[in-house]
């Protein structure tokens, strides 16, 4: 315990979270803990609590543990011990220092990547336990500033980045216009009722990475897809409220997304290269709303590109020459089993694919997902230093020839970007869509 306290003294949280912690009283903490544990958890939580035999076998699953020289404070069970176990043992009678440490552990030292679920002999879902902790922290109003602000944005605008209604449509139309320089009759149809596909993105695309919308438009138009994008709320499929434990807002945002698809009467939703959004749409958000599976089928970009390439709707003019290595994002590989399709896409697009080791379900997390990167710059260093094992994995792929790193997920992309720079790995980062756009056959201009 004393080690943990030392760790904490070195690490203050951001001022807004500290302000939240300073408002806590022992009574308030106990009340919230009791309320969440009694009313919101059930058999699953109890079984996990009773089943864990404290074997420590989950440890090597975690990139934080591996990156901190096997410091047990960072092992999955070790993190649960410092948070949930202690809370239950002490029946919620914990102090502010405990909560401060819990914020740091639950929000910045666990990516909820579920790799540990593959290592626990009992199949204990440690990420779920961590989400229970985050739910408690949400109810205590001590969620880290940046991600809390993001949850506020979701609550107001139904998107992640405070993008206003006019800004969204304006950006899409701007990208349409830009892309018309390349394909004269290219369209990004807004609000086209009865289209086959609704294409949804995450708010960082219109905000910072509008070229991804441009590329998607080129791909859609070349492949002759009957598609649309919503002009109103629901265009953003992301959901950081899912990661702050604000389940009510998570559900509200997901409802907006599915209702946009339902309103437009599309057959399916295709989403861009984002992992957590897939988790929120096809796993957590739908469940909160009572939909056992997404009511409108959700197709992740990897699967969509796979279909386009397999059916010949997209043809590759010249394969990407530089050797690539492929990062398997947790939410669409451990979360959706898209690893083989991702390999098919990579092999169709590129001359040479160098496998990372480990890979597929066992790939190391990017360190950014699970809302960790969204906790803001204050935690950037601990995030990158907490994932040196990823850098080693990347260096290894590079030593076997890889020059480009494909990360088909926004969070992974940003997290790997930080790792590549921090450790000077020297790999060029790409989305699949970057390479498809670069290598595909495009229609001749009129």
């Amino acid at each position: 315990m004393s080690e943990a306290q030392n760790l904490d003294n070195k690490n203050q949280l951001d001022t807004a979270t500290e302000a939240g912690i300073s408002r806590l009283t022992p009574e308030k903490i106990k009340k919230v803990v009791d309320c969440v544990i009694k009313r919101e958890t059930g058999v699953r939580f109890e079984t996990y609590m009773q089943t864990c035999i404290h074997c420590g076998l989950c440890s090597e699953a975690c990139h934080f543990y591996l990156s901190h020289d096997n410091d047990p404070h960072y092992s999955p069970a070790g993190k649960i011990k410092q948070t949930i176990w202690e809370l239950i043992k002490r029946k919620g009678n914990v102090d502010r220092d405990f909560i401060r440490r819990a914020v740091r552990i639950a929000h910045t030292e666990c990516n909820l990547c579920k790799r540990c679920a593959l290592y626990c002999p009992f199949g204990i879902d440690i990420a779920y336990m961590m989400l229970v902790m985050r739910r408690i922290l949400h109810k205590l109003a001590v969620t880290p500033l940046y991600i809390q602000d993001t949850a506020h944005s979701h609550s107001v605008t139904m998107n992640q980045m405070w993008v206003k209604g006019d800004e969204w449509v304006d950006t899409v139309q701007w990208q349409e216009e830009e892309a018309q320089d390349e394909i004269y009759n290219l369209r990004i149809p807004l609000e086209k009722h009865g289209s086959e596909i609704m294409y949804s993105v995450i708010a960082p695309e219109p905000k910072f990475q509008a070229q991804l919308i441009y590329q998607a438009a080129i791909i859609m138009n070349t492949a002759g897809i009957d598609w649309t994008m919503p002009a109103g709320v629901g265009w953003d499929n992301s959901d950081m409220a899912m990661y702050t434990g604000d389940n009510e807002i998570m559900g509200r945002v997901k409802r907006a997304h599915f209702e946009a698809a339902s309103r437009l009467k599309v057959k399916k939703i295709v989403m861009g290269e984002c992992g957590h959004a897939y988790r929120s749409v096809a796993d957590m958000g739908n469940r909160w709303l009572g939909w056992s599976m997404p009511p409108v089928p959700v197709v992740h970009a990897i699967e969509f590109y796979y279909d386009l390439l397999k059916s010949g709707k997209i043809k590759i003019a010249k394969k990407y020459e530089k050797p690539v290595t492929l990062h398997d994002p947790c939410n669409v590989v451990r979360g959706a089993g898209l690893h083989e399709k991702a390999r098919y896409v990579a092999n169709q697009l590129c001359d040479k694919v160098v496998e990372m080791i480990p890979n597929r379900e066992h790939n190391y997390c990017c360190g950014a997902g699970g809302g960790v990167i969204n906790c803001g710059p204050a935690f950037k260093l601990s995030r990158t230093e907490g994932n040196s094992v990823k850098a080693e994995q990347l260096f290894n792929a590079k030593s076997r020839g890889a020059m480009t790193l494909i990360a088909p997920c926004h969070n992974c992309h940003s997290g790997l970007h930080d790792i590549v720079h921090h450790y000077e790995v020297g790999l060029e980062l790409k989305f699949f869509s970057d390479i498809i756009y670069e290598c595909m056959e495009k229609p001749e201009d009129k």
Partner: protein
Amino acid sequence: MNVIYQFVAGPLAWAAFILFLSGIFLRMIQLFVKVNQPEKFLLHYFSLRYGLRSIIRWLTPFATTNWRKHPVFTVVTFIFHGCLLITPVFLSGHVVLIDEAWSLSWWTLPDGLADLMTLIVIGSCVFFGIRRIVRPEVRFVTDASDFILLVIVAAPFITGFLAYNQWFGATWMTIAHMLSGQILLAAIPFTRLNHIILFFFSRAYMGSEFGKVRHARDW
């Protein structure tokens, strides 16, 4: 001493079995009654196929990545659990008692092998105990209860071994053996030893989630 022996071999044994069985029964009832509260989806995703896939995979030595990563631990774990479950059931001494009481009998282990298996269980408990102290990642998540559980598990085997081999007052040792065995049985439903039952549920749930919903392997 005879009175004590009779008491331990009679009412107390019944009490232990009743506690063991009713404890497990009650746990199961509790599990199924509460399964939909408040998480209404748990049963919804249950899949026999994927549940069994996961259980069988994890009950096969070296069939999962993590078993392969820890060969020594894996060997000890599987042999330990095998010996733990097989030895008491097929021990000739136990079968004789049951035969005398209910005229029921079955194949028994050769005594030498039973002795060896008993020593393996005891040795494994020592291994697990040392592992808890030596390995930092295990030590960190270990508390006193983990050692107590190891003692509870090892005690019937230690006392049984001593009683059989007639070391230190055999009758007293037999009483101690029965008592410790009863404590172990009774403790299973009420301590984390119930992982022997809950394993199948947590594994089946995770197996179902990974197989049916996530289309990925959970090993």
